[in-house]
């Protein structure tokens, strides 16, 4: 079983899931801004927070797009590695059956060289994925603070308090859904072979 490829697929699926939540947050940010504008003076504080949500969603979205791009690159690299491993396995088996002299040694060396280059690139990719993930995680943590503040501001919007409070709660739920996924992604990346 190609563990590396399976792990890359799992990472990619998690990133797709978080991207879905980010799209939701982006829509929520827009919706919150429109709502705040409609309410007017009473939602002035909430409008500031709604704008923060919008900015955050743009930042998070960019990070997730980058993560998605890196994860697809990693998938391709793992596919190429998987192809190389398959060839190496066939040559190994051949070498076990017969003394093949230098011919196979040269082939094996070439494959090993390609494998080492792929390995180096994989390490670089993992590190880039890791730092992009850190940035996304920080943005999501900031989201918790925004959600909390938006909840407080919604309470000052008089007759619209309940409506704006519900919007803040929805935003908090999305952020709460993202955080464990990002944590999980970090762990997956640490264990990625």
């Amino acid at each position, binding site marked *: *079983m*190609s563990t590396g*490829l*399976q792990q890359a*697929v799992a990472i*990619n*699926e998690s990133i797709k899931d978080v991207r879905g939540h980010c799209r939701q947050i982006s829509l929520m940010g827009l919706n919150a801004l429109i709502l705040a504008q409609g309410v007017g003076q009473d939602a002035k504080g909430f409008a500031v927070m709604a704008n923060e949500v919008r900015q955050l969603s743009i930042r998070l979205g960019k990070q997730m797009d980058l993560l998605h791009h890196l994860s*697809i690159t990693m*998938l*391709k*690299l793992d*596919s*190429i590695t*998987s*192809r190389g*491993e*398959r060839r190496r396995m066939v040559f190994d088996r051949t070498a076990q059956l017969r003394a093949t002299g230098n011919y196979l040694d040269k082939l094996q060396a070439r494959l090993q060289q390609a494998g080492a280059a792929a390995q180096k690139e994989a390490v670089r990719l993992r590190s880039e994925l890791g730092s992009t993930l850190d940035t996304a995680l920080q943005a999501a943590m900031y989201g918790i603070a925004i959600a909390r503040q938006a909840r407080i501001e919604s309470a000052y919007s008089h007759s619209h308090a309940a409506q704006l409070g519900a919007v803040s709660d929805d935003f908090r739920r999305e952020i709460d859904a993202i955080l464990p996924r990002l944590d999980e992604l970090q762990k997956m990346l640490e264990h990625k072979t």
Partner: protein
Amino acid sequence: MKKAHTLFSEGQHRWLAISRDPERPNHLIDTNEYVIVYGEEAGLTDPGGVEIFPAVFGAICEAIDPNAIRWLFSSHQDPDVISSLALWLEFNPALRCHISGLWKTFIPHFGGDENTLVAIPDEGTSIALGGLDLQAIPAHYLHSSGNFHLYDRKARILFSGDVGAALLPPESSDLYVTNFDKHIRFAEGFHRRWMGSNSAKRDWCERAAALEIDMLCPQHGAIYQGDDVMRFINWFDALKVGIV
């Protein structure tokens, strides 16, 4: 890079085409792979060769979770069709590969064993995908002696393997046939040479004409849709094949 394009989408039922790879080296023939999704399950037609596995796998991962793929459908035995089998099995050893029974002992040279390969009898069979039944339609001698196409009655799509294939110039990137007369010139030489039997061709044309087909999806070149489907069947019926 190859990309997935949605051909059909109705609720939990989708057809995706993985086509046109601008990064593909010219010494490799361009191929189309099709992913059929029904609920939580997916099937993949003619997954392609070893060299294009990274491009196909990457494009699939962008569109769906590849763990959803339950089976591969191999229209016939060619290397551009199924030589990536071993790599797919590395990823998921539980995958099954549906192919003509004729090739059951040949294909394991690419990978897999008697558990991997599911032999399709000459007369064809139905292949289940979630709650959907797809039909393996006989297309023997077009061009391979054990050859099948895959028909989805619900989506009205026929995956037609090499039938309908066109060797398009590299700059052509249309997913669908836009000008039949212009397009068919790129298909003519291929069909004359690769399709070996006029009587098999006539049988297939009659079989295909009886099906309700909105899209005819070949393994190479652009997809025929709407009136172009019947136009293609009539053109093929009139073509003399098996000519060098």
